[in-house]
């Protein structure tokens, strides 16, 4: 700022007025480097206060122009009031913007002329766009939920179908009375085991057994009791044989067991245990306690490599041994070839 450092105390009123104007003009127009009013001007009544207020307004405006709304303007009067109004509006606008950012789209500006119109229009547009996006999101969520529901329904149907198929498969391979494999499935399973034994060079055994005088049970106790006897015999057989032995109902009261990795002696032991257990276990039915005995025929062989059609021979040999067991008095285990 270019201010006279020292003016003549006896300067003319025009010169003094000119200096005052120059000092105030500099305060408004120039970049001030020295904020002090020249000494001889400080004696003019009211001028230091006016100059000081102008400097405060300068500082305030420069701060606001630089984005600092926190500067406090400590002057009263209309100009100071107008500037404080502007500051207050800008601060309130900042707060309103924060509210909008937090999702309050009801905020409206009504104190900044054209800016208010543009700002409010922007908020309405933002609100409308977000509302539309929300509606679309809700629609997508709804569709997604419907799809998930549909998938759930289909999964349930598929599960029911799978259970149904499993049930049919079980019915196709098992004997409905005793729950063990039926004859047809036994042959499929046995075929697989024979091929494995043929590859590995391991031995196989077959046990054929049936319930002695079963017809008498049916005749004396009824078919329901006969069915119960069959079920109990199978239940005991399941406990005596290994889990990898293949137990099946061969027909009527006749059963067959294929024992992998077993020779005649290996097969004889569980057959003997089962025979003794059945003999010693009364079966309690509706018409009293029933004691039955069983006869067993056992065969075994070790298939040569590539020899896969031996099941017929094993069954035939076991069947002949069973026949021999029957013939020689029943309730016994007979080994083929003995």
């Amino acid at each position, binding site marked *: 700022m270019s201010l006279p450092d020292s003016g003549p105390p006896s300067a003319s009123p025009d010169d003094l007025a000119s200096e005052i104007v120059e000092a105030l003009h500099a305060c408004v127009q120039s970049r001030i480097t020295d904020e002090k009013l020249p000494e001889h001007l400080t004696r003019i009544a009211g001028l230091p206060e006016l100059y000081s207020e102008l400097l405060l307004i300068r500082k305030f405006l420069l701060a606001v122009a630089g984005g600092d709304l926190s500067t406090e303007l400590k002057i*009263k009067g209309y100009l*100071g*009031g*107008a500037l*404080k*109004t502007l500051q*207050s509006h800008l601060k309130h606008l900042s*707060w309103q913007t924060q509210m909008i950012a937090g999702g*309050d789209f009801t905020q409206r500006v009504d104190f900044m002329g054209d800016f208010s119109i543009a700002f409010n229009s922007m908020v309405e547009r933002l609100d409308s766009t977000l509302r539309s996006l929300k509606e679309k999101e809700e629609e997508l969520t709804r569709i997604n939920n419907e799809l998930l529901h549909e998938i759930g329904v289909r999964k349930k149907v598929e599960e029911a179908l799978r259970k149904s198929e499993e049930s049919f498969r079980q019915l196709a391979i098992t004997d409905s009375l005793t729950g063990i494999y039926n004859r047809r499935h036994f042959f499929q399973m046995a075929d697989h085991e024979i091929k494995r034994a043929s590859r590995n060079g391991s031995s196989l055994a077959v046990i054929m057994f049936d319930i002695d005088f079963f017809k008498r049970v049916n005749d004396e106790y009824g078919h329901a009791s006969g069915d119960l006897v069959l079920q109990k015999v199978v239940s005991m057989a399941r406990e005596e044989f290994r889990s990898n032995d293949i137990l099946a109902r061969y027909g009527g009261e006749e059963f067959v067991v294929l024992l992998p990795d077993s020779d005649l002696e290996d097969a004889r032991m569980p057959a003997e245990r089962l025979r003794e257990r059945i003999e010693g276990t009364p079966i309690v039915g509706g018409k009293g306690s029933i004691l039955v005995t069983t006869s067993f025929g056992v065969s075994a062989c070790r298939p040569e490599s590539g020899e896969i059609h031996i099941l017929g021979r094993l069954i035939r040999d076991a069947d002949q041994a069973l026949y021999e067991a029957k013939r020689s008095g029943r309730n016994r285990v007979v080994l083929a070839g003995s």
Partner: protein
Amino acid sequence: MSDRKYAFSWELLGDISSGRPHLGLTTRLEVYRLMQFVLRDVLERHLGTKKTDEIFYEAGKLAGTEFYKKYLGAVTDFNEFIKNLQSQLREMGIGILRVEKADIEKGSLILTVSEDLDCSGLPELDYEVCVFDEGFISGVLESFTGKRFRVKEVDCWCTGDRTCRFSAEVVE
């Protein structure tokens, strides 16, 4: 005090609609100010300036508390509370409330009120006169937060609508 004559209740204000079928719910603002300023005058003469201001602050606080109960209750969100307060004050012609800063967690607010019922249009003075407003704001804030607030008019300016700036700080 069981023998009080003027314990406040909204019923004391009566049924204005049926009581003023021709003149309606509003009156000229100068009548309101007439009552307030003559009351200040008489109270000041009897009790002094300080006590008069204290009475006005306390009366404002009671007004804010009752106003909150009648018009602003049942809101828990602070921003919603401020919106409702702004809306009610504007709708009832009490003033235009704006927020410069609001940190409710710290209990620190800067508010302005323009076109104020009590003071807009008054000449700018060397001292603040809105003690009733101070009390009113503290009553409303205390009712909402459950914490005590000290409200002070820190600035006012006469730009036509005479805006008053209030700071509100929670009292620990």
